[in-house]
């Protein structure tokens, strides 16, 4: 299986605090991989490092074989590596449909393309994806007026609209009504299976991640603690201790 994302011995510190300490992980094309760990273990920091939010202090990050640790956020995004945010970020004063339309994949843009009307194909795809996440009826509503759960779905749809190769999801089910979580898991699986998008998912909800991921990495105190298939991780003493606090 070709490695799509290779994180090798990445370290990141903020002042005196070591957020990530020589963490290594890999995600193959087409996989769904989970990233778990107690609060403060450095999961979101790792995500931020991967997508270029801040520079890393050591190590290497390669996407499709290409070193990305020195690139800027928009450059990495244009290579096909996107992320969603824990706090869910969307364009609040634009309508859902507009949020989707501005998320079309990057294309060479001269002045003419910059002023062009959205293509019909793009509008159709936007509407399809909105329906995929169940927001079609709300497409003309301002995104800021949606409920939190709906905004999360919109953010997910926008990410799909961008046709990424790989998507980093930061706690996709946090704050979502438990009755809707199954629907979200289904959609994530379909995005992976039908659209071929590789997923790396940070999750706190064990049921979700055990159900969703094919492989799981566990971080604790900024270090990689364990790695393996869901059953292996579930039974790993070290993982249980990390969450419950070993004595």
């Amino acid at each position: 299986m070709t490695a799509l994302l290779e994180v090798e011995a990445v370290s990141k510190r903020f002042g005196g605090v070591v957020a990530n300490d020589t963490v290594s992980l890999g995600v193959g094309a087409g996989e769904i991989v989970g990233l778990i760990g107690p609060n403060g273990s450095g999961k979101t920091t790792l995500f931020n490092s991967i997508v270029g939010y801040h520079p890393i202090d050591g190590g290497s990050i390669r996407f499709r074989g290409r070193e990305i640790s020195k690139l800027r956020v928009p450059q990495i995004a244009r290579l096909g590596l996107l992320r969603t945010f824990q706090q869910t970020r969307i364009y609040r004063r634009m309508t859902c449909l507009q949020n989707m339309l501005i998320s079309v994949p990057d294309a060479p843009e001269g002045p003419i393309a910059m002023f062009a009307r959205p293509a019909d194909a793009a509008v159709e795809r936007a509407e399809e994806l909105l329906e995929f996440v169940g927001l079609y009826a709300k497409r003309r509503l301002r995104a800021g007026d949606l409920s939190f759960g709906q905004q999360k779905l919109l953010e997910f749809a926008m990410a799909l609209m961008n046709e990424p190769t790989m998507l980093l999801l930061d706690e996709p089910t946090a704050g979502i009504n438990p009755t809707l979580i199954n629907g979200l898991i289904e959609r994530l699986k379909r995005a992976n299976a039908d659209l071929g998008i590789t997923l790396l998912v940070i999750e706190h909800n064990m049921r979700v991640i055990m159900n969703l991921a094919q492989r799981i990495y566990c971080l604790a105190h900024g270090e990689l603690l364990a790695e393996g298939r869901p059953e292996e991780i579930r039974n790993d003493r070290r993982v249980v201790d990390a969450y419950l606090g070993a004595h």
Partner: protein
Amino acid sequence: MSPLARRLAPLLAIGAVALVAPMLLPAFKTQLSFLWIMVCFALTWDIMGGQMGYNSFGNVLFLGVGMYLCAVVQRDAGLGYFPGLFVGLALGAMLAVAVAAVLGSGILGLRGHYFAIGTLGLGIAAGEIASGWDYIGAGSGLVTPQYPGDVDTRKMLFYYSSFALAAATFLTLRHIYGGRFGLAINAIRDDEDKAEAMGLRTTRYKTMAWCVSAVFLGIAGGIVGNMIGFIDPRDVAFAGPTFGVWMVLMAILGGKGTLWGPVVGAVVFHVTQELFWTYLLGWQRVALGLLIVVVVLFFPLGILGWLRERRPELFGHRVDEADGGARP
């Protein structure tokens, strides 16, 4: 009435009124000309501040650049009045765009406060530099050439030029806001980091927005310079405390981030100013400061912004419950 006609009707009505206005109110030709210039000022500010969230306190830079270059061309190019004016306006606009394009990569990397204060500094610095540069008249400024004809025709010429400029600005903005450009700058306003994280070429769009402002302000500069007849570096060309501040106030008053807001704001502001100037005299500028504070504190949405909150359907926002959940 068909939807197309309904959309065009207000524009055509305004256009018709505008065309005959100088005949109906012949004593106010200059004030009416300035009304259209104000509309242009407010609209060009709104691209940056309202639609894109980049509050520029230095758009007056482009006004001054266009004004000076037009005057220099008229003075030195040796063309007749009309060719000189035409070429001057065109070159003034081009230079303004060039300035926006060149400065853009640096200045537009600044955000929030830093962009606002940085552009403030830019506008003032330009005025100070112009005040010392002898080639363009230094502190004494420049005088634009005499119009070869009678006063009345001159006023008509500049009235229709101002109106044409305002109309061109409005129609251009209306067009580009409906395309990818409009979506991009709104996304930058709502969450620039998110836009970057989605791969949007934000620098390109920010610079383009500034260039669009610059081109219309550059032309406005040439027209204003010729209307007033005399270009003072600090009080006319790079007039921060007057034009520069009015640009911001008018757009906010009318409702920033809407297409018609700046137009409404410009009309309300200009008419109010013309009416009260005679009563307030020197206190006018004190009142201006007070007005900014009051509007910003109590009425930050502006007229159309307030309307948009009350009646979002008028602006195209609604929940399509009639469609149910399924696509047709």
